[in-house]
């Protein structure tokens, strides 16, 4: 169905229900990875939904998840720009820095020291630097494709691949080290 055929609120609602609503859970999971804060994640998804509704008539219907993740990424960049304009030279780096500044001031390393992990894999994941951990969460935990993760983070697919592969090698080393300690 072409956008022209569904113009107007009814068609807009139908397209929103068809393309956007089914992706709500993925959007919330990705938002949690990006913001590291449940309240911010919810706000970011709401912002994304509003932007998506306004743009739905221009959407061609192909790859709705990738389209929504790009909208979410742009929304996050704008949110960060409003809060911390001086950080906007490198949006990817900015998101990492904002995420690192979690509400309780805990970084991944201190969380690692404070928490008794249920499994070595959990500790290995938590020990990764933020930008590597985020890619693992998007691809391995939330099952995004490389392209979708790239859209969500605003980085090239090649960067997603290199971070992901390096992160998994680090996880493997951590697991091997933990096996050695146990034996």
């Amino acid at each position, binding site marked *: 169905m072409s956008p022209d055929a569904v113009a107007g*609120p009814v068609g807009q609602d139908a397209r*929103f229900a068809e393309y956007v*609503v089914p992706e*709500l859970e993925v959007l*919330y999971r990705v938002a949690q990875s990006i913001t590291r804060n*449940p309240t911010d994640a919810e706000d970011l998804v709401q912002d994304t*939904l509003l932007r998506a509704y306004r743009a739905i008539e221009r959407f061609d219907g192909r790859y709705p998840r990738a389209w929504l993740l790009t909208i979410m990424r742009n929304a996050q960049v704008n949110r960060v720009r409003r809060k911390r304009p001086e950080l906007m030279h490198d949006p990817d780096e900015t998101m990492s820095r904002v995420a690192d500044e979690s509400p309780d001031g805990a970084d991944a390393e201190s969380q690692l020291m404070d928490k008794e992990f249920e499994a070595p894999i959990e500790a290995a994941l938590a020990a990764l630097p933020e930008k590597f951990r985020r890619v693992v969460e998007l691809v391995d935990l*939330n099952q995004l494709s*490389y392209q979708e993760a790239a859209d969500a983070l605003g980085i090239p697919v090649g960067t997603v691949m290199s971070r992901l592969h390096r992160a*998994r090698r680090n996880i493997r080393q951590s697991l091997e080290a933990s096996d050695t300690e146990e034996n």
Partner: protein
Amino acid sequence: MSNKTMSCRDVALRLQTYLDGELDDTRMDRIQAHLDACVDCGLEADVFTSIKNDLQRQVSPVNSNAMARLREFSEQISKRSADSD
């Protein structure tokens, strides 16, 4: 693409991408054939498959209250638009 056998080095370079299912069908098939025949590369693939599976089990359920609020928000967007017309 030629049907030549892939080397262990070629497979190592593409193993992660293969495990993520992000290669074209021809490359997927060639790597699968190599992994079936090469014990060392097969073991390497098993290690990373196990890591991927363990990571997937780390997914926690989303907060159902947050999801309910987001669904309600989605409905309100449409309603608000209809009311303003």
